[in-house]
């Protein structure tokens, strides 16, 4: 296997959890809800996903447990922000703190245990093709699933009436309400969907990336996923490009460390996070010129008058 092939394979593996979590958050934000708890939902997905796979020996059960953990966490968030009209930023941060703490508790007994990772696709002939074989036909189901998910979201948002209503709710909740759309119900579903995706993204880590659980193993990926949504200016196509770009930065810094450039390893490890900050600066400077679909009601509390 050549070095380039190895790098591309590693990038695909590293990008998938970002893409899954960011795709869910994109839908949530398109409905006008800012859920900063992605990191908390991911880490809970990781802990519960590992627990499910460990007890049953099935990575499918593990993935389902991860999804349910994310949905459960996001249901708490939905109850707070949509039911009780709590400030979304505060509730999101609380959700992350809660998730990090609880996952440590749940996962404490699993540290040092191993499970069998999600199997990778193997097709005769195709997977054996030189270079492209393993990249295109040798991935696990979650990698293909994440791409299918983004395509599905694109189709939903731009080609279905339900997607149009969801975008309308995010753009102007007062008008959507005046036209008779159930704003809070639609937002609840969007938040739960976002939670499911974040939970699956988190579960990907112990199920497919490294077949064991360590506390805090999401290592800020939830925050990167949040930044990715802004980077993508809320458009699914750009989200794929952004997720792979960030995955590439993560992997390249590992290779750069391996090559021994004499740069402190801590600095190299910080590279993906520095890249996040850089991207956010670039976006804020070019706002309005590259076309932004920022949902106008994003993060605003809505209480219907009755």
């Amino acid at each position, binding site marked *: 296997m050549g070095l380039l092939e190895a790098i591309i394979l590693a990038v695909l593996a590293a990008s998938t959890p970002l893409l899954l979590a960011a795709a869910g958050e994109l839908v949530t934000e398109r409905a006008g809800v800012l859920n900063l708890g992605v990191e908390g939902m991911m880490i809970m997905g990781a802990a519960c996903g590992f627990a499910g796979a460990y007890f049953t020996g099935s990575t499918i059960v593990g993935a389902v447990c991860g999804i349910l953990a994310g949905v459960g966490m996001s249901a708490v968030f939905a109850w707070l922000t949509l039911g009780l009209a709590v400030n979304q930023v505060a509730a999101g941060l609380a959700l992350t703190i809660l998730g990090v703490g609880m996952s440590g508790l749940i996962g404490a007994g699993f540290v040092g245990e191993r499970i069998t990772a999600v199997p990778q696709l193997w097709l005769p002939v195709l997977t054996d093709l030189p270079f492209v074989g393993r990249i295109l036909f040798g991935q696990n189901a979650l990698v293909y699933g994440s791409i299918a998910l983004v395509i599905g979201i694109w189709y939903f948002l731009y080609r279905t*009436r339900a997607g*149009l*209503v969801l*975008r*309308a709710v995010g*753009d*102007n909740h*007062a*008008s*959507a*309400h*005046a*036209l*008779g*759309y159930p704003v809070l119900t639609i937002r609840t579903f969007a938040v739960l969907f976002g939670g499911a995706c974040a939970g699956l993204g988190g579960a990907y880590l112990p199920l497919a990336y490294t077949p064991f659980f360590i506390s805090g193993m999401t290592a800020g990926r939830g925050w990167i996923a949040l930044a990715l949504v802004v980077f993508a200016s809320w458009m699914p196509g750009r989200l794929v490009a952004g997720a792979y770009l960030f995955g590439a930065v993560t992997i390249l810094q590992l290779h750069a460390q391996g090559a021994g450039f004499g740069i402190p390893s801590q600095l190299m490890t910080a590279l993906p996070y520095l890249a996040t900050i850089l991207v956010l600066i670039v976006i804020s400077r070019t*706002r*309005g010129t590259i076309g*932004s*679909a920022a*949902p*106008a009601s994003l993060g605003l509390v809505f209480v219907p*008058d*009755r």
Partner: protein
Amino acid sequence: MRDPATPPRPTAPLLQAIGITKRYGTFAANDAVSLDLYPNEIHALLGENGAGKSTLVKIIYGLIQPTEGELRWMGDKIVLAGPSAARELGIGMVFQHFSLFNNLTVAENVALGLAPTENFSAISDRLAEVSRDYGLPLDPKREVWRLSVGERQRIEIVRALMQNPKLLILDEPTAVLTPQEADQLFVTLERLRGEGRALLYISHKLDEVKRLCDTATILRLGKKVSTCDPRRETAASLARMMVGAEIGEVKAASGRQPTIPRLIVRDLSLAPDDPHGTYLKNVSLEVRGGEIFGIAGVAGNGQDELFAALSGERISPTGGAVVIDGDAAGYLGINERRRLGAAFVPEERLGHGTAPRMKLSENALLTGHAASAMVHHGFVDKPAMLDLVDRATKTFDVRKAKRDPEAASLSGGNLQKFIVGREILREPGVLVVSQPTWGVDAGAAAVIRQALIDLAARGAAVLIISQDLDELAEVSDRIAVMFHGRLSDAMNAADADRETIGLLMGGSTIAPSEAADAGA
């Protein structure tokens, strides 16, 4: 759907509201209001802000449920579960604050207002057809934020018409239109009446109502005052019913002599902050001491951007672009401009003009700390703050429940009197005020206009940005019009007829702005 070929008998009301009451706690927004709407009729709903017009209309459109009372549609009792139930019956609504989605296209906006059964391309075709039939041209593929205010209203009307409503409700439809656009709208409305539809027309513009409407129902403080034929009433008698008292005439102070220019804007160009904002292009103007300078224009033509550049919320590209009393202020922040003797009253009362949850005294401090003696060695002087509140209360008749309540607890008119009073009591040399009487009851509006005239009479330069042409005509000495970020030449208010101003507001004969006498 009922068969449109058999219209109801014109003698029977299409919709009856009987004894409608809506209570929020102990407060009755509507108190036993009854209303009959007939086909072939434009029925005006008149009243001041807070009289309960919006509440009644929301009940008829199914957005809120009445506490008591019932609605009848062609004689049958109905309960509207929501707007979609109202739309199914044949009730359409054109909202005052447009219920549009800025990031979506015209066709998407229209589709959202229709039943989910129709597919998108059929909607686009029908949209083109309706907009052609009624002479309301629209491009279905454009995003709303690219459109003018008049075009946005067209979307609302076309969206409502595509449901083929028997009853169309219009909430203050001319508030944001130029006089010419309003005339066009009236032609459309008269045609809709001719087609046998009932129209409920909400307004507080008495001339329009007299011109257009067959019947008028007047609300005051949630109660119905009367139902009358507006064409048989005078504007004064309608106003009396709305307000419940005679409105004081605003009188021009005599002997106002313009002196030297105290506020000069020279060739100001500025990119907007907001991606959907307006570029200011070479704006120049001069306001002299003792003069009131009015800026007219349809909202969204750069007035907000101009206000921000004058107040110092946005810094100008050159220091000399804004000159306050002879000092170049373009680079100065808002407090430094206040120290030069300028004062500013923004359009938005809650959130921009005041911090809603802070007390009036604290709000007095927020604009007064730079140039008034309310802070000593970094400590606030509470008695001085309360003193300003008391003086504003007394001078401008601010009505409030206690001495120092939260800003948000005041009614719009009283809060606006306080905000304008807070600035005027500092005796500014230059006052810039945006929409001074927007959404304010007639009594408070008269007090505020009088205060602005009196301030100018004491030698201050006053700049008023307003969408209300009547207001500008009443108080201004000179008027200029903003369109697409450019400012027209200033006209003497005495020579400026509504038609010329209206044409300028629509952008038809805009001339590049020039400083009247740059040597001054």
